[in-house]
């Protein structure tokens, strides 16, 4: 591999900007600049060093910060496109045709285009996932490429740096000390810098004071965190890692929990509470009359014995009793039950009165429990009502047979056979809501509807996400890395005492120049050093003068 050999004799890998030992600028660019570029401390970024095979080319592509930033921006734009119209999972239709119709009807031809381009489900599209994946590759490759050389050059720092390095720093000073014994100057500097919590190293007539080096690792730590986070998101796709099911349970019902084998959940009661406030101005604007206060399911979680098989429901063991509310899911062994939806007032039982049509005389009441209809309801030994048919969601007749559209009691209908003392052979009547059919002509009796009993239904979602701990670890590492990189900074001060006792000084920080200047102000005063200048100050002024284009 080609190497660059510095004047000082140190061998540097190709692509190095500043000699790893003495700091002399090695490239023409570095030599001609007034302030050297200190990122990665002038170490060669690995990808810049070689460019041969296909693998290297791909590697270099992803290593480029320019590519990384472009990927960030592309991801940003792609994500924003998904917010133009609501995504599919936020609209309440299920089939593809309905979805297409929804977008077209609601948002016109633009909506139709949006749907057809797949933008209505952009976040699960293959190309969006590939974009995120490419960003992840970029993070990994760029971190490996920069982190390792930076680590090496920080670890192998020399105290003594060449004049050409020192003079090209942003903060520099050179000159005799203002008063006092110049032989003691370096000691004074060391004393002061130690007080300012710098680590001080000396090498002959040179001194290096350094503080907060670990902050240089912040970006790499946060990138590791991000990668762990993204990997954890991917884990979700591994079978068994992620369960996301929804279920409806009526009050008093027990249901097997989908995705959670051997467990059953019983809905004891569903509670809906409303705020009793007066209508506020915001409610007025939004056309909302009352605001919900609480959605709650009083639930019981049961478990089968371990050797039991599905369907066997006589050996259940109560595991947990809990009031599931929004923000307060029931949690058990990694599974969580969330309050998601509800339906109020489904018919549970109906009460009828056997009535003489003419006289209006009542012969007794019949209570039909829709969860357990009986073959006959005996009123007394001469009077009874037989139930010949029950159709929970009556949808019309087909070949004279009543039909049900669903198993839910949305529109219950019954065929009753009424046996009374004066009609011992019985009269048949078909009874539905607002409809009565008497197949044998005019009956003397009717089943007069009296009242209903209702119950509520709760919609729960069942979740298990085993990737959460990994996400949490990734997120925590990311936050730690970001905090380290943001709230601490790496400050260095190089001092060299020349043979005539005068001082040459340079300082660098990766961020917070204001802070390092305060430190230097302090040491300059303490050790009577020459005044320093900030070489970038006149640059900024120049920029102002030359302003004409963006």
């Amino acid at each position: 591999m080609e190497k660059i050999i510095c004047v000082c004799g140190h061998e540097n890998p190709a692509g190095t900007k500043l000699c790893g030992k003495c700091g002399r600028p090695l490239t023409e660019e570095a030599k001609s600049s007034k302030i050297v570029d200190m990122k990665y401390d002038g170490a060669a970024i690995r990808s810049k060093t070689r460019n041969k095979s296909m693998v290297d080319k791909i590697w270099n592509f992803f290593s480029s910060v320019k590519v990384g930033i472009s990927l960030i921006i592309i991801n940003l734009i792609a994500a924003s496109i998904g917010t133009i119209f609501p995504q599919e999972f936020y609209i309440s239709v299920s089939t593809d045709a309905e979805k297409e119709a929804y977008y077209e009807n609601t948002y016109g031809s633009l909506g139709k285009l949006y749907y057809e381009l797949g933008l209505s489900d952009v976040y699960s599209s293959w190309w969006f996932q590939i974009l995120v994946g490419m960003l992840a590759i970029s993070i990994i490759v760029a971190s490996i490429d920069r982190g390792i050389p930076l680590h090496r050059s920080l670890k192998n720092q020399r105290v003594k740096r060449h004049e050409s390095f020192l003079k090209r720093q942003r903060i520099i000073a050179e000159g005799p000390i203002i008063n006092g014994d110049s032989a003691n100057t370096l000691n004074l500097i060391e004393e002061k810098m130690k007080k300012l919590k710098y680590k001080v190293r000396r090498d002959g007539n040179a001194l290096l004071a350094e503080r907060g080096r670990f902050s240089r690792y912040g970006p790499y730590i946060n990138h590791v965190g991000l990668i762990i986070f993204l990997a954890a998101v991917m884990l979700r796709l591994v079978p068994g890692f992620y369960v996301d099911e929804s279920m409806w349970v009526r009050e008093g019902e027990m249901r097997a929990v989908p995705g959670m084998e051997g467990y059953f959940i019983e809905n004891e009661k569903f509670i809906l509470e409303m705020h009793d406030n007066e209508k506020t101005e915001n409610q007025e604007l939004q056309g909302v009359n009352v605001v919900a206060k609480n959605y709650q399911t009083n639930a019981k979680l049961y478990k089968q014995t371990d050797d039991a098989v599905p369907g066997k429901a006589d050996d259940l063991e109560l595991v947990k009793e809990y009031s599931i509310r929004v923000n307060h899911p029931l949690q058990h062994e990694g599974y969580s039950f969330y309050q998601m939806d509800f339906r109020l007032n489904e018919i549970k039982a109906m009460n009828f009165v056997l009535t003489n049509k003419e006289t209006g005389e009542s012969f007794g009441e019949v209570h039909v429990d829709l969860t357990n209809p009986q073959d006959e309801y005996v009123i007394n030994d001469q009077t009874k009502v037989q139930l010949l048919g029950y159709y929970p969601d009556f949808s019309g007749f087909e070949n004279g047979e009543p039909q049900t559209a669903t198993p839910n009691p949305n529109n219950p209908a019954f065929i009753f056979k009424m046996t009374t003392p004066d009609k011992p052979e019985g009269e048949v009547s078909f009874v539905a809501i607002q409809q009565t059919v008497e197949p044998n002509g005019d009956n003397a009796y009717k089943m007069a509807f009296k009242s209903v009993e209702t119950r509520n239904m709760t919609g729960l979602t069942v979740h298990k996400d085993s990737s959460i701990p990994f996400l949490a670890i990734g997120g925590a590492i990311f936050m730690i890395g970001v905090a380290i990189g943001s709230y601490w900074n790496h400050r260095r001060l190089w001092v060299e005492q020349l043979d005539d006792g005068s001082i040459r000084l340079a300082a660098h920080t990766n961020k917070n120049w204001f802070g390092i200047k305060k430190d230097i102000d302090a040491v300059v005063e303490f050790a009577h050093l020459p005044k320093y200048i900030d070489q970038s100050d006149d640059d900024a002024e120049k920029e102002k003068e030359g302003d004409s284009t963006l």
Partner: protein
Amino acid sequence: MDKKKKRSITRGAILVVLLAAIVYTVYTSATNDKVKVLQVGDKAPDFELVDLYESDLKHRLSDYEGKGVFLNFWGTWCEPCKKEMPAMSRQYANYKEQGVEVLTVNIAQTDFEVKKFLESLDVHFPAVIDQTKAVMTAYNVNPLPTTILINPEGRVEKIITGEMSERQIASYMESIKPEQE
């Protein structure tokens, strides 16, 4: 091995792993909806349900080992379920002697509805009600009717969703018939 080559291999390996991760992600999330819990060839999950008519008769799948089981999920509101029932009843009469058992599983309706419905169709085969939907969940049944063919070894032979004709029913029963000695 020289350093250059070694580095190239490391880089290549990292890139390949990352690429594989992306491909896996895109592939699985694209096919995610289609992944069934239960697949042909799997061991059919055991279950136990109480007979519709005799409360102390329990139908346990494992008790039928050595027989073919024709497991049919249905509901009274489901029109195609209703249509295929008489054919099932007739074919069951044929294949019963040849070691094929039919078990129809109603999804959480009331005894009354199920009994009246079967009576009105005049069909005869064992029927059970899956009150808690546990068996339905275990077999990942979604549309009705769904029929699961279970061979004498207790493995899923075929999963049929939608209505079956009488000829199909006959051939399905034939396919799970145990070998005659």
